[in-house]
């Protein structure tokens, strides 16, 4: 999937669509890591249009989040659909990157 992006208040907002699985995650990972290499330190991943995330998909988010934390920044996800939200909670990923209902909530928190 091609990443739609925008900047808001110094934060990179990345919009994902469809499925995040073995077929799509490589391309997404490359683009996200590319953004981080290019200087992005705070990233929000909007996922209201993502219907399914596999373990490989969560790994992409995890790797990006850990790299951003190492660099003093962070990653958050927003708009998780119910099934994806459940998988996110089971996986315990909140310890590394939080999930919020909307990107605005994230931006509020990050000031």
């Amino acid at each position: 999937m091609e990443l739609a992006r925008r900047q808001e208040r110094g934060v990179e907002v990345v919009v994902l669509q469809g499925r995040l699985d073995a077929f799509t995650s490589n391309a997404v990972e490359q683009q996200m890591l590319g953004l981080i290499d290019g200087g992005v330190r705070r990233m929000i991943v909007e996922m209201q249009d993502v219907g399914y995330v596999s373990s490989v998909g969560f790994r992409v988010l995890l790797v990006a989040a850990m790299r951003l934390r190492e660099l003093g920044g962070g990653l958050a996800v927003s708009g998780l659909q119910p099934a994806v939200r459940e998988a996110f909670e089971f996986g315990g990923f909140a310890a590394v990157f939080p999930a919020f209902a909307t990107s605005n909530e994230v931006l509020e928190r990050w000031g």
Partner: protein
Amino acid sequence: MGLTSRSHDPGGLVLVVDDVAENRELLRRRLEREGHMVIEAAGGAQALEALGCAPVDVILLDIMMPGMDGYEVLERLKAHSDWSRIPVIVISSLDQMDSIVRCVELGATDYLHKPFNRVLLRARVSVCLEQKRLRDQEQRQYRALEESQERLRAELAEAAAYVMSLLPTPLRGEVRADWEYIPSASLGGDALGYHSLDADQLAIYLLDVCGHGVGAALLAVSILDALRPGALGEATAADPGAVLATLNGRFPMERHNNMYFTAWYGVYRRSTGELAYANGGHPPAVLLPPGGAKPLRLTAQGIVVGAWPDAHFETARCRVEPGSHLYVFSDGAYELARADGTLFDYGGLVELLQIDAARPATESGLNLSQDIARLPGDAFEDDFSMLRVAF
């Protein structure tokens, strides 16, 4: 004019089919001069016989022949799995365009008029030869692909069989344990087990490696080995949080092809009826108390294993009443798409577990996959693994 030697275009084997010997002879001379080898057939029956013995590349076929005519030969060729790939040039007289069209409809590649124009003969035979070569190459590549896919399937099946061979036999006695493991076609990296730590304590565990394929299965086997009786040391093995922390340190993602895994690990103490458990990113286990009481989700704080060096894995505890049922499973047991597009989910699975727990205990073991498979439209995409302990 001697042989025209075209080093980039070696000749092929041409079958000439014509009831008139002179016509065959004329074509033979012309074709041999072009560097081709020629077989002759005086009629349709002979032509089919020749095809059975020789690797013909191109057929020159007279339409008008007594006995089996050109049309019938074409029909026979088209119906044959190998011969249908051999290009056919039909030979006709100038006023036979209708016949030629019919031949093309029956699968002929091209046509030639009598008397033969040498240049056209050479060109059309050459094109057909090229076409045959391409078709042959395609066929070889297709077969090679099929073979390698078959090898891959066989390798996955072997890996699945090996994982299966490591799983424990059903437990019988005061505490009964059964499991169900159905690896998916792409092998999802699930593994499970239980074993006594000592006379009093029973360890129960199930894990799910991220991704699919032999790689995931290999890691699953490594982790199972790290959990085997005696591997962890007495103190650690009885402490679920410590077990996951040990695995987390021993299997960091970056040293295992970037694969993390989820794991649920519990220790049941028979003397007290207490179950201690830890959860590394795994779907919560489900405890069904006796008498149809409300199901309990057994989960504890912990992220997926191998991902985060600083991770902490909480140990939670609960009391298990006699007559309870514990179900531990991977997400392959409930992440199924239904025919109507909705997902069968964790909640739906819990409902099925309640039905299973209410069944009288039999010797036949666990068969939940069938209950799930009976739901309309569901198909297992991932490994199905489920462990049930009856207390």
